[in-house]
């Protein structure tokens, strides 16, 4: 069960009560506005109590909230999204959506890791966990973006690349590795949006870029808290502990210089005002794309190289490079 959904319940009850009173207010002669105001104050207080001080583990659940905007919510908010399918080799992987669209009139290619909204859709989307063919479809789109010199926009939201038999047989490692090599040298601007879950290498496969934007309550980690707890302590139930230690929040990752820009969410999370959050993300994308498109391509690639080149924490450095 999602802990945020549990926490939210009293708030949702209160809000539905307020809605009821508002309807009464409109249809009946009696004036409930005083009561409504009182309840609204209480609701705001409750919201602040619930969401004002979330633990990292609670924030992981916020990023998994069933009503959180998904990759396609952002992508379809672009103008004229047209989906392109398939890796030309094995299968079309619905866990990665790909295509092209316009960002405020600018032609862009888009990639997104896509979960489902319900069980049926989640089975179809494999809960947003791509297979190698998904990363190979992504490579096809990356190459198109480079060939036609259009910026690439990616939307990251995956628990991780799928760990299954077929995925291993068809080279999950190779598929992600090839994405990374391709993105590192791609001669066109890449803007990355981490909007939900940033699960390890499966996220990074479409998240190496020039400008990395992260939604406030998204998480991005070397491993999911459950996987990390399992790897470190052979005990997946210690995920809350792992979530705290992994430094997977947008604030911490900003401090590390791994995230370039954090887009704020309304109190309670993105699903409390989906349209506003989408608008904020796309605004940030637009600013980033415009800025990056002004750079000569060689400089763009050099800057991208330096951006990743300097990430590390080591104490004795060759060539006099400064340590973190």
């Amino acid at each position, binding site marked *: 069960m999602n802990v945020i959904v549990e926490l939210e319940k009293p708030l949702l009850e209160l809000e539905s009560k307020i809605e009821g009173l508002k309807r009464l207010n409109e249809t009946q002669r009696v004036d409930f506005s005083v009561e409504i105001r009182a309840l609204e104050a209480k609701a705001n207080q409750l919201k602040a109590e619930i969401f004002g001080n979330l633990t990292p583990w609670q924030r992981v659940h916020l990023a998994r909230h069933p009503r959180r905007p998904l990759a396609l919510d952002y992508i379809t908010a672009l103008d004229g999204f047209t989906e392109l399918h398939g890796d030309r080799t094995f299968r079309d992987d619905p866990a990665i959506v790909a295509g092209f669209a316009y960002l405020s009139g600018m032609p862009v290619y888009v990639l997104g890791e896509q979960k489902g909204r319900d069980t049926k859709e989640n089975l179809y989307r494999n809960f947003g966990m791509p297979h190698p063919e998904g990363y190979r479809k992504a490579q096809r789109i990356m190459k198109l973006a480079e060939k036609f010199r259009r910026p690439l926009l990616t939307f990251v939201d995956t628990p991780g*690349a*799928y*760990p*299954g*038999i077929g*995925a*291993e*047989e*068809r*080279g*999950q*490692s*190779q598929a*992600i*590795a*090839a994405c*990374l*090599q*391709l*993105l*590192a*040298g791609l001669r066109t601007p890449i803007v990355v949006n981490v909007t939900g879950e940033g699960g*390890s*290498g499966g996220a*990074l*496969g479409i998240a*190496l870029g020039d400008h990395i934007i992260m939604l406030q309550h998204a998480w*991005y*980690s*070397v*491993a999911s808290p459950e*996987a*990390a707890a*399992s*790897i*470190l*302590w052979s005990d997946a139930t210690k995920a809350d*502990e792992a979530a705290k*230690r*992994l*430094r*997977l929040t947008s604030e911490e*990752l900003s401090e*590390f210089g*791994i995230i370039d820009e954090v887009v704020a969410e309304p109190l309670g999370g993105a699903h409390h005002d989906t349209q506003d959050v989408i608008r904020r993300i796309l605004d940030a994308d637009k600013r980033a794309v415009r800025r990056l498109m002004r750079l000569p391509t060689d400089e763009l690639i050099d800057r*991208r*190289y330096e951006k*990743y*080149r300097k*990430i*590390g*924490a*080591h*104490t*004795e*450095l*060759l060539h006099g490079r400064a*340590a*973190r």
Partner: protein
Amino acid sequence: MAPTPNWLRRRGARPEAASDALWDICPHCNERLYKKDLAELLWVCPKCGHNFRISALDRISLLADGDFREVAEDLMTGDPLQWTDRVSYVTKTAGDRTKSGLMEAILTGFCAIDGVAVGLGVMDFAFRGGTMGSVVGEKVTLLIEECGRRRLPAVVVCASGGARMEEGMVALMQMAKTSAAVARFAELGLPFITVLTDPTTGGVSASYGFQADVIIAESGAAIGFAGRRVIDQTIRQKLPDGFQSSEFLLEHGQVDMVVRRADLKPTLGRVLRFFAARLAAVPA
């Protein structure tokens, strides 16, 4: 046992013996093996052919012709997350340094393999399970960059459980950093060769491990993206025979060849000679 090469004697540090026992048990066939014989046997079980996991130092002895000039040898990891669980990350890595005789999970340097000058990186599973943190990422990157400057082939022998948890996203970003180094190196038209040994998984297999021009798997190694336990827990069904073995990967088109430990040096030599040969040197 072969005499200790100069570079190794110069290096001084040697791993502590894991135990004082005179015998090792082959984990594959349970054969009792006299420890002193194992080095002569290249740490291969004479009964079943099982490759024992070996240290980076031993691997370099197996591959390098003579001298190995180590670089970036003093690089030591920081503690970007200020990590503590049962013990602190700082304590863990200090223990690994003592136990393994290494500063980190990889040694990098320059040497000749079967007569061909190369940059060589060798990972060591004994240090934090060969996981990639800042130092592994940095040393691989420095090695590849330096090979680019010297126009030498780069060879990395992988042995890794993936990205290092205790360095969190700083560790994951080493996948991006090393990939960027490989991408630049590839644009220079220089050859990059990896040898995947037991085990090569996660962040290392999903970055430079599988980005090479030629990928050689040592026989019987476990190679994959996800660990077996994770897969078991996710799909809860029987895994195919030999799943994630070198031979399985060859059949599935993921590696160029599977090579026994004894053949590794001559095979690398053959590949390197071909890839390193200058067209100009060819008779017209």
